[in-house]
């Protein structure tokens, strides 16, 4: 790996250096746009005591949910969880710490973490359990709370295409939290469906510049669908 070539050849190499008790920020919304193979590599490594930052926590046998049976997650910061039984069991038993965070605040916290903003004010959560212990302040007659940024030791990201320099393009709503996650990791690891040569992506269409990306790996994806809703062809 020389210069700006970020491509690594194995998932082991991709997640090298991940250690117990680290914080990992993951892209994805539900099961859409999740770094499914990077998550599997974390499962395989058996790293424990992790703090996960992700909008959701997957389902029983897919996504971040697969890190639950072996108790690899100590804490999760998420907006919506509990789509699986093991999650609820661990949460109810106090084996898993859950910090519920409004979805927009979560996205903004990741962005702030990557952008050198240690904290920002938001109206979201004012007067709710989310505001507990946080500074409140009025601006122009409206109430806001101060939210701190989030940074991760690792960020794990799923993109559609990348060039070898780590410039990323996302596809449809699989974009979601991935661009913010990519900015907020000390080490940002990205898995993609296709890797092209530098210069092949239109510079105006790059969603995440390669400066945020440390490692890049080509993967194959199951892309499981959570709610398969269809209309009949005749409608």
């Amino acid at each position, binding site marked *: 790996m020389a210069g700006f070539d970020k491509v690594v050849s194995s998932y082991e190499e991709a997640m090298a250096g991940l250690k117990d008790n680290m914080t990992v920020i993951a892209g994805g919304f539900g099961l*859409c746009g999740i770094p499914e193979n990077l998550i599997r590599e974390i499962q395989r490594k058996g790293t424990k005591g992790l703090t996960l930052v992700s909008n959701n926590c997957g389902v029983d046998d897919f996504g971040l949910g697969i890190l639950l049976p072996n108790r690899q997650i100590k804490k999760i910061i998420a907006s*919506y969880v*509990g789509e699986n039984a093991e999650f609820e069991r661990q949460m109810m038993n106090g084996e898993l710490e859950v910090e519920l965070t409004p979805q927009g*605040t979560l996205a903004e916290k990741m962005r702030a973490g990557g952008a050198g903003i240690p904290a920002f004010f938001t109206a979201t959560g004012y007067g709710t359990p989310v505001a507990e212990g946080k500074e409140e302040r009025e601006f122009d007659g409206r109430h806001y709370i101060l939210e701190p940024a989030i940074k991760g030791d690792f960020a794990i990201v799923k993109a559609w295409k990348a060039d070898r320099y780590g410039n990323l393009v996302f596809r*449809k*709503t699989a974009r979601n939290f991935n661009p913010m996650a990519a900015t907020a990791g000390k080490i940002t690891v990205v898995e993609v469906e296709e890797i092209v040569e530098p210069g092949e992506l239109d510079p105006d269409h790059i969603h995440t510049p390669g400066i945020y990306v440390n490692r890049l790996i080509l993967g194959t994806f199951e892309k499981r669908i959570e709610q398969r809703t269809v209309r009949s062809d005749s409608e």
Partner: protein
Amino acid sequence: MALTREQLAQRVAQELQDGYYVNLGIGIPTLVANYIPEGIEVMLQSENGLLGMGQFPTEAEIDADLINAGKQTVTMAKGASIFDSAQSFAMIRGGHVDLTVLGAFEVDINGNIASYMIPGKLIKGMGGAMDLVAGADNIIVTMTHASKHGVSKLLSNCTLPLTGKGCIKRVLTDLAFIEIKNGKFYLLERAPGVSVAEIISLTEGELVVEGDVPEMQL
């Protein structure tokens, strides 16, 4: 007669205006999309990063990379755009969405709303609901007026953990369309065949009834 889910959606749909950007929550609010009045165009915002949500896909169109905030497979309408979650909530929190429709467990006379958590029972999280109620000026809450056991959900004070404080001005229940102002509920409309007396009896928070209260037109 209490409104059905479809009738609730129908009544909400009457509030749509041409050119509105609208965020519809999960459940009854989602049904509003089925009752958009003739001659009116609205664009649906889905907070996972899609403006211009279309109908469900055909089997052939299904795309795992294209879902809505309810995690359902969807399509894109003409003129749709895709963006990341920070941009999506910049729209929502910056007040750019014209109308937000979402459900609730309870609302109260101070415009407080509880919709995301029942301690010890339901702790799945607030998703985007706290952002939606804090960011929007124009919100319609849809809910049942009271529990099956006749316990009012329109209260002096919410009993459940709040989703937002002082942010709700309009509530459509299966019995009534209500405005919240000056620390009181105001009865704007009643469901067809539902009496004012019944609404009063099922409203725990102070309810102001001024003059004849019209029936909803559906």
